[in-house]
C-alpha cells in the first residue's frame, strides 16, 4: 500500500472504532432509517430488501438502487452503509461514487465472483466483510477490509451460526496468542494468511480491525450474548423490522449492547417487546449464505 492508502486505511479502521458499542440496523427506506436513528442506531445499512425477504423471494439479489440509498443518506445524520455483491467491484465503485460511508461486501447478496473478493485496498471508502473464522477474517483484512463481522446466518432470526463463528474466531485468537513463533509461521501457512497479520493477532490477542456480530440477532439477549462472547458491536438485520414493535425492540437492543454485562438491566429491557420475528431454524433452511465467499 502507498502512504496515502495506508493513511486512508487507518482512517477507515478509525471510523469502525467510533461505531463500537453500537447497533447497526438494516433499513429499507428513509422512514425506517429515521426510526432506527431515533431508536439509537449508530449507523444504518441501506438495502431494498432485508435478508429474511431476500431469503423468501429467492432469485438473484443485487446492490440496491442508488436513488433509494441517497434518500436514506438525506434522511439521517448517522453513517450510512450499503451492500455490494462479493467480488462485484463495479457495484463498489458505484457506492463509492455516491459517498457511502461503509461498503459491506456481503454474502447476503448473490456472489458475483466465486473466486476473487474485491481488491478493497484500491478504494478510499471503507469495507466491512463477513467471516466465519480467523482465516477468513485475516484474508479479508489483507484484501483491505477495515472492519469484520461474523457471517451468522442472515434472515433466519437464529443466533446459532453467529455464536459458532464468534466462538471459532475467539478460540483461534486465543490459540494464536499462546503460540511460539515457529508454530505461528505454520499456522499462517495453514490459514493462508500473511505472517504479519498472524503476528499481530499473536502479539495483541485481537483482530487488527473492529469485529462486530451479525446474522440472526433477534432479541436484546441475543445482542448481549454476542457482546459477552467478544463482539465489539452488533448488526441487526431482519430482527427489528420483522418484529411486532420495531421502535421498542430497536431501542431495547441498543441499551442491551451498552449494558451487556448486567442481567438485571437485560431483564428489564426484555419485557413487553411484543412479537419477535418468527425466524427459521438452521436445520430448516436450504440456502446457507455463510458458505458464500471464503
Amino acid at each position, binding site marked *: 500500500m502507498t502512504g496515502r492508502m495506508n*493513511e486512508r486505511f*487507518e*482512517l*477507515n479502521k*478509525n*471510523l469502525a*472504532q*467510533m*461505531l*463500537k*458499542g*453500537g447497533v447497526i440496523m438494516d433499513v429499507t427506506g428513509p422512514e425506517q432509517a429515521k426510526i432506527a*436513528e*431515533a431508536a*439509537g*442506531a*449508530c*449507523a444504518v445499512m441501506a438495502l431494498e430488501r432485508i435478508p429474511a425477504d431476500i431469503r423468501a423471494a429467492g432469485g438473484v439479489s443485487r446492490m440496491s438502487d442508488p436513488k433509494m440509498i441517497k434518500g436514506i*443518506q438525506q434522511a439521517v*445524520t*448517522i*453513517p450510512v452503509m450499503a451492500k455490494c455483491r462479493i467480488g462485484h467491484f463495479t457495484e463498489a465503485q458505484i457506492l*463509492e461514487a455516491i*459517498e*457511502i*460511508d*461503509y461498503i459491506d461486501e456481503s454474502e447476503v447478496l448473490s456472489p458475483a465472483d466465486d473466486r476473487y473478493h474485491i481488491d478493497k485496498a484500491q478504494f*478510499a*471508502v*471503507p469495507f466491512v466483510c463477513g467471516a466465519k473464522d480467523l482465516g477468513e477474517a485475516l484474508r479479508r483484512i489483507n484484501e483491505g477490509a477495515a472492519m469484520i463481522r461474523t457471517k451468522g446466518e442472515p434472515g433466519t432470526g437464529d443466533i446459532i451460526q453467529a455464536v459458532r463463528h464468534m466462538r471459532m474466531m475467539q478460540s483461534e485468537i486465543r490459540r494464536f496468542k499462546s503460540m511460539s513463533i515457529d508454530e505461528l509461521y505454520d499456522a499462517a501457512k495453514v490459514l493462508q494468511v500473511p505472517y504479519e497479520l498472524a503476528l499481530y493477532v499473536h502479539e495483541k490477542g485481537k483482530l487488527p480491525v473492529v469485529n462486530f456480530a451479525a446474522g440472526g440477532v433477534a432479541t436484546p439477549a441475543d445482542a448481549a450474548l454476542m457482546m459477552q462472547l467478544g463482539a465489539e458491536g452488533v448488526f441487526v438485520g431482519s430482527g427489528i423490522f420483522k418484529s411486532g414493535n420495531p421502535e421498542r425492540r430497536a*431501542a431495547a437492543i*441498543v*441499551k442491551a*449492547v*451498552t*449494558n451487556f454485562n*448486567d442481567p438485571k*438491566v437485560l431483564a428489564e429491557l426484555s419485557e413487553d417487546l411484543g412479537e419477535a420475528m418468527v425466524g427459521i431454524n438452521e436445520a430448516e433452511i436450504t440456502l446457507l449464505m455463510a458458505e458464500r465467499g471464503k
Partner: protein
Amino acid sequence: MSIGILALQGAFIEHVMRLRELGVEAFEIRQLRDIEDGMDGLILPGGESTVISKLLRDLQLFDPLRESIENGLPVFGTCAGLLLLAKNVVNDGAPGFAVMDITAKRNAYGRQLGSFLAKESFAGVPNVPMTFIRAPFIESVGAGVEILAQTGGHIVAARQDNVLVTAFHPELGDDVTVHRYFLDNVVDS
C-alpha cells in the same frame, strides 16, 4: 485521581488505555450506579452523538452529569463529546449538556471520504497528530473560550474553565499530549 469515561457507545476503551498509560485510574460509566462514588474528571468519547445523547437520557445519567459539570467537574469531550458540550450545534437534533460557549458544526467535513489526518500545534505544543473522523469543527467561540488548536482555518480544540473539547481524536494513536493537558491543566487546576 480517578477519571470516569462515558462508555455508552463509541471509542471509550481507547481513552481508558491512554489514561492507564499515563498511570491514571480510569473507570467506565454505563449506568447510574457507576457514578455514585464521584470522580475527579469526566471524558465524553467519540461515537455517534445522537446515540450517546439518547442513552444518557434513557439511562438517567443526563441530569446528574450535567449538574456535576455545571458545578465545575473537569470534563473533556472528543468529537461527539464536543457536540454534547457545545451550547449551539448547527445541523444536529440531539441536544446535549450545552455548557460551553461555542457554536459547533456536526459532520462539518462531510461523509467518511472527508475524514483526514493533520499535524498542528496544540496549546503551544507543535506537531500534535490529529485524527478527524466525520468530524465537527467549531464555527465560533464566546468571550471566555480559549482556542487551543486550529487546522485549515477552523477551530478544532478549545477550553472554557473546566471544559476541554477537541474535534479530533487524541485517543487514537499513541500521542498523549492532549490527555496530559487535560490532567495537568484542567483536572489539576
